[in-house]
């Protein structure tokens, strides 16, 4: 199958949005503008977008502490995200969630999650709902290499398989959980080796390559929609910034990130592929870059101009009724 020109543009736009969003947050964090824990997704864009290009608002994803990329890829409103990260009332969660808890259920985005391994069980539930209600929707779980060692994640793989759920488990192996290397912490070295242990097909793809991710997920999503059960996909990737903002990354060898950026950057790779194939022109792509730059500038402005919550907001939204 082949992506249309519009789809390619959308894919590039979203990858670009993620990159600029994160680069800008990195800057603003350094300037002391952003409160709390911020985990940036820059470098991993091809994974989130390669996955979510197969999904509609009816499909659900669960995300992680490193959730901005998944949110953008799933179509969350960028202004709403930025307002949330700045703790404003107009934020996607009214300022109550922040970076680690951005969610938009109307977009099928079941939340970033501060608990590693928090999402996989939930995604079994979303997939079960789709199956029970016969909506034809799929549910996709994003987890990291660190999260692949969490019991909740491993349980979810088994349950999804036993229940034959329309689910896809995407493991973004960016080489590290905090400062710990994944080839040390993942005893099977490759996460994909866990697919067989839970009776599902597995694929390992280069997560810098949008097309490789897109292709593998296409199969997995088709399988899920056809009622054939879950799949596991390992996307090898890299994070450009530290684990969280403030991490000096001394555990990485000098030049490690620079090398990846130079050789494997997903945006560069995408540009090259689509222009060489004559699918999009440099001008098309540059135009998107320009729009995105403006969009993120504006998002920051709107966020700064957003309303601060007040004491009245403190105790609302705990229960539907109490």
């Amino acid at each position, binding site marked *: 199958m082949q992506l249309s020109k519009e789809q390619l543009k959308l894919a590039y736009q979203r990858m670009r949005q993620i990159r600029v969003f994160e680069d800008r947050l990195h800057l603003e964090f350094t300037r002391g503008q952003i409160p709390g824990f911020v985990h940036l997704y820059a470098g991993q864009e091809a994974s989130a977008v390669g996955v979510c290009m197969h999904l509609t608002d009816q499909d*659900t994803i*669960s995300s992680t502490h490193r959730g901005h990329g998944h949110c953008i890829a799933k179509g969350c409103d960028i202004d709403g995200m930025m307002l949330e990260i700045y703790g404003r009332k107009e*934020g*996607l*969660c*009214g*300022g*109550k*969630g922040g970076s680690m*808890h951005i*969610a*938009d*259920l*109307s977009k099928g985005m*079941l*939340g970033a*999650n*501060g*608990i590693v391994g*928090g999402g*996989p*069980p*939930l*995604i*079994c*539930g*979303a997939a*079960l*709902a*789709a*199956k*029970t*209600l016969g909506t034809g929707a799929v*549910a996709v779980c994003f987890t990291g290499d660190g999260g692949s060692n969490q*019991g*909740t994640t491993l*349980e*979810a793989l*088994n*349950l999804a398989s*036993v*229940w034959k759920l329309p689910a896809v488990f995407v493991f973004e192996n960016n080489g590290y959980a905090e400062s710990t290397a994944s080839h040390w912490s993942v005893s099977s070295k490759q996460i994909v080796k866990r697919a067989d242990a839970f009776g599902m097909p597995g694929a390992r793809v280069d997560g810098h390559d949008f097309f490789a991710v897109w292709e593998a997920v296409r199969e997995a999503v088709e399988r899920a929609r056809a009622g054939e059960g879950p799949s596991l996909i390992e996307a090898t990737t890299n994070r450009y910034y530290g684990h969280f903002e403030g991490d000096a990354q001394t555990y990485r060898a000098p030049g490690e990130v620079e090398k990846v950026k130079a050789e494997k950057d997903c945006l560069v790779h995408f540009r090259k592929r689509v222009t060489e194939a004559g699918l999009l022109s440099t001008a098309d792509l540059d135009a998107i870059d320009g729009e995105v730059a403006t969009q993120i500038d504006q998002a920051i402005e709107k966020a700064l101009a957003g309303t601060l919550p007040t004491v009245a907001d403190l105790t*609302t*939204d*705990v*229960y*539907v*009724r*109490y």
Partner: protein
Amino acid sequence: MPKKTFKQAITEAHFLEMRRDPRVIVMGEDVAGGQGASGEADAWGGSEGATKGLYTEFGPSRVLDTPLTESAFIGAAVGAATQGLRPVADLMFFDFIGVCFDQLYNQAAKFRYMFGGKAVTPVVVRAMIGAGFRAAAQHSQCLYPIVTHIPGLKVVIPSNPYDAKGLLIQAIRDDDPVIFLEHKLLYGVTGEVPDDSYTVPFGEANVLREGKDVTIVALGLMVQVAMDAAKELDTLGIKATVIDPRTTSPLDLETIVESVEETGHLVIVDESSPRCNIATDIAAQVADQAFHALRGPIKMVTPPHTPVPFSPVLEDLYIPRAEHVVTAVQATVPAKKKGN
């Protein structure tokens, strides 16, 4: 009115709500039973048999056995609740909360707040609580204080068949995550239970009897203990009000405070471990809000600060009994002449 056991009341609530609302599903280990086996399907109907028959009527898409995997299936129930289903998950023993607690307090309980009021998570987690079953330290705890502590959860502890049915129907219809706890020694208790559907609202205490001398608050199995004590106290000339809060979150503090304002004395009977439990919770709130009505110390009747022992001799000593309640009442209510 027909007499039914507590267990039948629970079963009936399931049937009625599943017939009424196709979004209600049930899941848990062996809630049907016999999955993949060559014998009878619906072989267990839950470890205590309370979901027996559901599988036969509603089939595998609405009555789901699970592998032994509490984090995954409790999480699945939570996730499904955010997506339009109304799952009732059977955790079996509430003692097992330790392998899946995150999905309740960090996920289900917090979605609505963290997501700015946009999530609705109508999930019910049922589980057995309590001692007396000779089931030892890991299968006899109450542990409801630890969920009552968590903002975003509701906690229900029925003490009789009528309430069990009405509260469970309410729990299933409720739009918030509900922890529904069934004392294992209550399953066989019988009482009048209408065949029809009805709800018992959350946050409304049940005043079982009124007496002017002391207010006794008790939960779950302890309600009967309190009632027995009240009868005993009658013979001592002490008239007790007995209040069953029915839900610990929300808690109907008002009814308790009103009663204490009349009686001036409060005794709380709680089967959970004594530190940071419901007894201390209610005692503290009364010591704050009805202090001026209090005419004696607030007494709490609880087990000791120990795990639940196995040996029947020890377990029987562990569980609060009516005589403990009587002693506690006597320690706060001034002695009266008989017939006073």
